[in-house]
Structure formats: C-alpha cells, structure tokens
C-alpha cells in the first residue's frame, strides 16, 4: 500500500457473464483525488467495470487494486474494501423502511461501529451538505427521485470512504431533477474526493472531470482530458457515440 499508488488501478481485468465477455482486458489508473467519468454505449461494460471495484461483480481475470492492495479475497476482506469505497446507484436503492436519517445511520452503526449520537451527527451534517436536512425524517417514498438520490449520496458520504462510485446516478431521474443531483456532485468534485462516475452527462464531465474514459465492447477505447476528448475524438466509435448523445 505505497503512498504513491493510484487510488484505484485496473490491470488487464476480464469478466464474463456466461459466454458474453463484459470486460476484455481493462487497464486504468485513477489517482487520488481524481475525478474520472466513464461513458460509452449501453452494454459496453462501464457499469460492470465500476461494480467490480467493490466486488458487486467478480471479475475472473486480472486484478483491481485499491491503494495498491487487491480488492479480491474472502468475504471479510471484500467487506473491508466496500467499507472504503462508497457507491451511488441508478435506482437510488434507499432502504424503504428507513427515514432519510436512518438510511444514513445504519451502516455507520453496523459497519463503522460508531455510537448512535456520533452517527446521527455525521448523518445530519451530510444531509445538510446535499441540502436535504429538512427531509431527514421522511421515508424514501415521500421524497422525489432527485431528493432520494441526494439522500443516497449523503448515505455514501457518511462512511467517509476513500472513493465514491457513481453508477449512472441521473439516468433514472426526471429531467427537472437531474440538475439538483449534478450540483451536489459538482460540489463534491471540488472538495477533492476521488470519484468514478458512469454517466452520459457530458456537461458534468466537461465541468469537473480530470479524465474521460470511453468504453466499447468491454474495452477502454479512449482516455483523455475532457477538453481534448470533446474537441477531437481519436476513434470513429467515440465520434458516433458523442454525436448520438449530443444529437
């Protein structure tokens, strides 16, 4: 776990679902405090790639390192990795039987073993941070999609992990709610948090990303700084993709 090791590193990672190869030798280094946006057509493997980092999917070949140490191992090791990497999902996945505050507290209590009052203080601080502290006692079904996703971000932040993974965080949102979630994410990016974000929000990529990763058919096709990437794509596939999502 060297001091200079990248926060997250993929080494020739391969992943199959039955006969279908979802990841075909992915290599990537993400430095500490870096913000990386991963994009690509659906089925290109971008979600799978992110889900391998915290082992919600297990890759079959290659290695993924978190601060220089492999993420694979027995269940206790995988849990310790997950403890260090937060995740925000497309469908929010808030715990339906818990209030916004309880959603933020539960893993702090069970996993980080914090005292109740400490966990609640931290939860309130992060709910404040995502500008939803006034809804702390609401249940998920009483919140709009955008509000739910902001609670989900606060829930991930509460664990004070080393990196946060975003798996298409705005794809399930109505257009008018995308902004409020992106604003929160831009704020986080400016705080120097390591962020890996699967998204088609190219405005967000342009604004905060250090690098844009373009994937297709389970491979990383291009990696570039956003200014570069949006000015000139090296491959036809990336050009087609951008033309498609930007109309």
């Amino acid at each position, binding site marked *: 776990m060297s001091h200079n090791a990248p926060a997250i590193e993929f080494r020739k990672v391969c992943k199959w679902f039955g006969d279908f190869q979802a990841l075909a030798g992915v290599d990537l280094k993400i430095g500490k405090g870096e913000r990386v946006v991963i994009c690509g057509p659906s089925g290109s493997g971008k979600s799978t790639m992110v889900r391998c980092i*915290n082992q*919600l999917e297990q890759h079959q070949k290659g290695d993924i390192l978190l601060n220089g140490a492999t993420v694979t191992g027995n*269940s206790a090791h995988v*849990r*310790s990795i*997950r*403890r260090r*990497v*937060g*995740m925000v*999902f497309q*469908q929010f*996945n*808030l*715990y*339906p*039987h*818990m*209030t916004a505050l309880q959603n933020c507290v*539960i*893993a702090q209590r*069970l*996993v980080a073993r914090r005292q109740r009052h400490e966990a609640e203080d931290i939860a309130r601080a992060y709910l404040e941070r995502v500008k939803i502290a006034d809804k702390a006692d609401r*249940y998920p*079904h*009483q919140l709009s999609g955008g509000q739910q996703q902001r609670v*989900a971000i606060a*829930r*991930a932040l509460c*664990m004070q992990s080393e990196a946060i993974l975003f798996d298409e965080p705005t794809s399930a949102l109505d257009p008018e709610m995308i902004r409020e979630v992106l604003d929160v994410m831009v704020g986080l990016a400016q705080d120097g948090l390591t962020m890996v974000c699967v998204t088609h929000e190219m405005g967000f990529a342009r604004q905060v990303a250090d690098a844009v990763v373009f994937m297709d058919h389970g491979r990383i096709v291009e990696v570039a700084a956003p200014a570069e990437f949006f000015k000139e794509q090296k491959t036809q596939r990336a050009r087609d993709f951008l033309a498609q999502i930007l109309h």
Partner: protein
Amino acid sequence: MFNFRDVFAYSSLILDGLAVSIVLCVIAGTLGFLLAILCAALKTTGPRPLSWIVTAYVETIRNTPFIVQLFFIYFGVGSLSWRMSPVFAATAALTLNVAAYFTEIIRGGLADGSRGVREAALSQGMTIVQTYLRIVLPPAIAKVDKTLVGQFVLVFLGSAVISQISVEDLTSAAQFIQTRTFRAFETYIVVTVLYMATGLVFSLLYAWLRPALFPWVRDSRQ
C-alpha cells in the same frame, strides 16, 4: 331444547383450555416465524443442498395433514427418543407446521424488488446476515404481513387437533364437559364461538399493532 347453563357451569375449565390453546399457538407462532426467517433465507440464497432440504421440509408439511404430523412427532419420534410430554410435542408440531407455511409466504415477499436494496447494503460493507435481517427482510415482511396473520389464525383454528394427544386445550375442555353434561351440541357451539372470537381478536390486535411495527407503511396511507 337447548341448555347452555350446564355448559357455563364449567366456564373456568373452558377459559383454562382457551388459555392453553392461545399460549401454545403464540409460542409456536413466534418460534415458527423465526424458523421461517431462516428457512426463507436458505431457500432463496442458501447453498444448494440446504435449499433442497428446506424445500423438502416445506413440501412435506404442506402436503400432509397436521394431525399426522402431530402423531408422527408425539408417538413416532417419541417412541425413538425420550418420552416427550404432550404439550412439548404439540408445540413442536405447531411450530414446524407454522414455519413451513410462513417460509413460503415470506419467500413470496422477498421475491420481487429487493435486489437493488440488497446491493446497496452490501456495497456499504454490511455482512450477508445484516443485509438480510436489517435491510431486505423488514420490507418483505411488511408486504405479506396480512397473509402471515391469516395463516396464523388458520393454524390456531387447526390447533383443535392437539386435544387428540391429551393436551388440555379448548377442544379437550369441550370433550370433557360434553361427557359430564351430555350437552355436546351446546358445548361445541360455545367452544366454536370462542375459537371464532379469538381468531378475530388476533386479527384486530394485529391491525392495532401494525402501525407501530411498520411505521413507513402507515405513512404511505395517510
């Protein structure tokens, strides 16, 4: 033609029997619920051999009469092991019976829509057990709670059979009174009404408890 006075002379015996029926069923219901939580987990996410064992157990209970299960445990298992008391055998049989039905009902509640929430809990570093008990299970139970209560009431009504291994329950009280008073029909009318009323009380009691158990469900109906 009818004479209930002779029957009511035994009212304390009847109430004692009712208490035995209620207490045994509540104990069995509680233990059965806990066993079902385990079995539902094993059946949905457990390793193959364990999920097969659970399936075999559930199907055996659901396809055989309770009275045969009761006799098998009290006489059959009792003949091979220690001599168990009727109350113990009855509680065991009721528990195993309730648990099998509860397992299927809970499994139904788990079936849809818990995958994303499960992943969220795991991604936060919770263990599989924490994820199941704290995150996945409560909403699943809330989805099927009325079916569970309905099944519990059915088991309570079916518990009349435990009188056949001389547990002194409500039905056994009735059989005793009937031999003393020769007022069989009246006795069974009284006891039947008590079974009905108790079943109803269970349902009403649960309806009253429900908002405290599942506050998030109550909120959705405001």
